[in-house]
């Protein structure tokens, strides 16, 4: 089936109006030799019912776990029913970027409200309308830091998500920047002395996450002081956005950019996407940050209204001199985050606390197993790393029982000598945690 309304009569009449006698004639500009002259080699078309059956079949080939013990950049949270109902409004999901402000006040106001929520959560002054994901938000903040300062060195914590570090390295390579890694200490935090030694006059930005990849909460203040002491900027990420419900806003602690993955706010894990990158900053970068920004203004009659603003930062105006090349962002995922935050409101603190309690319960329980012990001593949010005798065997056992196990740290962090990174959100029930511990005993 296709979605084309024309009848043959319509087509004939339109061809007459255009002055051609075949559809083929419309493609006369394509040299004959380059026309396909055959049908594409694709599976036969399907009726709607067949599509539904086929797609359901594919989804059914995935196996959803009884419960998941993995976070590592994607977090299972309960999504209030209101979120999916708002997202299903076709005025939102079938619209384009709100360039025509008069008929786009809905999304423009929603973005303005989101920007406000994010600045309050992160302790910043400006937040854009989203980046692609947490990794690209961090990479673009790094590139912007380097361009703004005219420096070419990025100093990145090894405790940042391994995939984020890879993305930053790809962007750095493309721009000819050097990337160096800061080791972590016994607490699982950035080793301050090492950072001091790595910083120099070429360093544009220090990139960290808190909670970091190991779930450990960093102390942002001293990191900001060290970076600023060398004239560099601090890009503070967060692994899990719900942690902002209880943690001190990174902007208040001195971060110049706050970046991170916003998926945990109302978006499903969905095999890695679509998610939304959060990017927020200080007043100093208001006219430089990448991506779309909505500003309040008034109309001809003095009524309050909203428009995309400061567009001279953007590619469609500035072309090669633009701050970034970003055009499409993750607007609908951003809308999910805004609705989620509106639903949770001050209860986000309660939810974040529940995550902390569950994680500490699971951490404590697993640490009673013979040979299992925390890898780090630092305070954690809802993730924690444990050394264990045989990580692969542990995950095999959990998988067999229908659980997604911990993230195996041995691939990306061989220096840890084997270990698993576990996550416990509000979705993980005590009985599952107890069951997991007994399975591993």
């Amino acid at each position: 089936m296709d979605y084309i309304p024309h009848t043959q009569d319509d087509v004939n009449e339109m061809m007459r109006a255009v002055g051609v006698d075949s559809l083929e004639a419309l493609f006369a500009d394509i040299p004959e030799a380059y026309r396909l002259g055959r049908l594409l080699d694709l599976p036969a078309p399907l009726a709607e019912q067949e599509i539904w059956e086929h797609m359901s079949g594919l989804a059914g080939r995935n196996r959803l776990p009884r419960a998941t013990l993995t976070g590592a950049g994607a977090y299972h949270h309960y999504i209030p029913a209101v979120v999916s109902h708002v997202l299903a409004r076709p005025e939102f999901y079938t619209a384009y970027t709100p360039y025509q402000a008069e008929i786009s006040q809905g999304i423009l106001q929603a973005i303005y409200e989101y920007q406000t929520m994010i600045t309050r959560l992160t302790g910043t002054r400006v937040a854009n309308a989203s980046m692609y994901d947490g990794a690209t938000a961090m990479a673009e903040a790094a590139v912007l830091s380097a361009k703004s300062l005219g420096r070419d060195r990025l100093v990145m914590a090894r405790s940042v998500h391994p995939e984020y570090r890879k993305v930053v390295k790809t962007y750095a390579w493309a721009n000819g920047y050097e990337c160096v890694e800061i080791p972590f200490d016994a607490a699982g935090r950035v080793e301050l002395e090492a950072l001091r030694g790595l910083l120099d006059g070429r360093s544009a930005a220090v990139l960290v996450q808190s909670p970091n990849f190991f779930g450990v909460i960093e102390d942002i203040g001293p990191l900001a002081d060290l970076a600023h002491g060398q004239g560099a900027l601090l890009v503070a990420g967060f692994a899990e956005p719900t942690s902002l419900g209880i943690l001190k806003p990174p902007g208040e602690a001195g971060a110049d950019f706050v970046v991170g993955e916003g998926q945990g706010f109302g978006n499903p894990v969905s095999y890695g996407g679509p998610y939304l990158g959060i990017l927020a900053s200080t007043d100093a970068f208001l006219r430089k940050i990448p991506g779309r920004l909505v500003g309040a203004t008034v109309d001809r009659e003095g009524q309050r209204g909203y428009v995309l603003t400061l567009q001279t930062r953007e590619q469609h105006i500035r072309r090669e001199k633009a701050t970034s090349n970003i055009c499409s962002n993750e607007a609908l995922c951003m809308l999910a985050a805004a609705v989620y935050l509106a639903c949770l409101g001050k209860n986000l603190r309660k939810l974040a606390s529940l995550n902390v309690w569950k994680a500490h319960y699971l951490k404590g329980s697993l640490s009673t197993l013979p040979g299992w012990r925390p890898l780090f001593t630092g305070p954690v949010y809802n993730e924690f790393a444990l050394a264990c005798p045989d990580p692969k065997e542990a995950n095999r056992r959990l998988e067999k029982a229908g659980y997604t196990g911990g993230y195996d740290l041995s691939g990306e962090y061989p220096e840890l000598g084997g270990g698993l990174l576990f996550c416990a959100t509000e979705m993980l029930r005590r009985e599952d945690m107890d069951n997991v511990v007994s399975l591993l005993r």
Partner: protein
Amino acid sequence: MELIFEKSRPGRTAGSVPASDVPETALETLIPAGLLRDDLDLPELAEVDIVRHYTRLARRNFGVDVGFYPLGSCTMKYNPKVNENAARLDGFTGLHPYAPVAFSQGSLRLLHELAGYLSEICGMDEFTLQPAAGAHGELTGVMIIKKHFEKKGRKRSTILIPDTAHGTNPASVALCGFQVATVRSNAEGGIDVAHLRELMTEDVAGLMLTNPNTLGLFERNIEEVADIVHRRGGLLYCDGANANALVGVTRPGDLGFDIIQLNLHKTFSTPHGCGGPGSGPVGVKRHLAPFLPVPRVVKKGKRYRWSEEFPLSIGRVRAFYGNFGVMVKAYAYIRALGAEGMRRVSENAVLNANYVMARLKPHYRLAYDRVCMHECVFTGERQVQESGVHTTDIAKRLLDYGFHPPTIYFPLIVREAIMIEPTETESKETLDEFCEAMISIAREARENPDLVKSAPLTTPVKRLDDVLAARKPDVCWTLC
């Protein structure tokens, strides 16, 4: 309309949190107090108020499901509903990106097959699905160009871009450390081949070409263009933003392109979501495949898995695997249409654009008077000269007629540009209604120009003060 913060009342709440089934320890005993926040300033509303707030906002927005949306170069086609349902299947949305491979075979198969379909449609050998949007795909493609020359041990510093190109092209090139050199267009709206020949030196890494270009015109000299670029060792990059004109009729790979990025949210019917999520897969010819981002899905027997074993890869451009939920919709779309349906897409998209062009030609001046592809570009110059009505006025007046305006003031080489892309999913009646509205506005411009200049008259807000917004930026609410 009031902001959500203005509707907030202390003590109200919507999202309830379950009681804890584990010990509730004071947070300060688990996390040092200095790392904890003091207050949390989020709005407090009851569920019904939140639902009404966002419903009212939705009613102040315009989507394809509300009405005709002929936004040039954006391919605002109808978004099939079954695809939305498919993307919401629990088996897709509930799968964690690090779920064991044994748990993920359905998603992996979908990704593998989708990459195969896109390769066939474009005449390319391999596709990556990792880039999250068209511009992200461009960046990935330019990185592949960079890697290609790095591997050859030759540094080339410049990439050529026609003056008709989308702004993302030069911005992507700049974000990859290349210089941009602009190629002029010729009198018939194509690339100026002589200028290209002059610019195409051994220092040029390649040409980024949108075909059909943003004037909606097919690059007639494509064979010669490809030859000039390849002879000097350059690569030919296709911005596939306008692929809706070509699917099933011709293939960029056959036309000589080495790299292409597609926009699944344009050609492959996935909704734009107010500006995202999109998806920008990148296809390449075999000789460039080793440079594609990792990880890549590989199939062995009937099993699928992720592989990072591509040592020449540019690396990662995004965490995880891309905008999976968007890919589900594009996959369902391709399966619904099949080969015949794909060709009907471009045939009808091109027919519709030419029909609108033919109907409006007596009333608006055409930028280039020749058969167009999926979109047609007019200029509002006649209206400016006759009555001082500008393209922006015409666009705003269309709002009063219930239509989303075309893309305006782009491409940059056309003054007062009006760029109309009807897409194939619109009926003749809809196109006629739109044309009647445009003709009526042309008449209003002559007879009552002040009416057109004061438009829109029927929208919830009137023309907004962009200058004030930029001069005194107010990008977050601080009054409460």
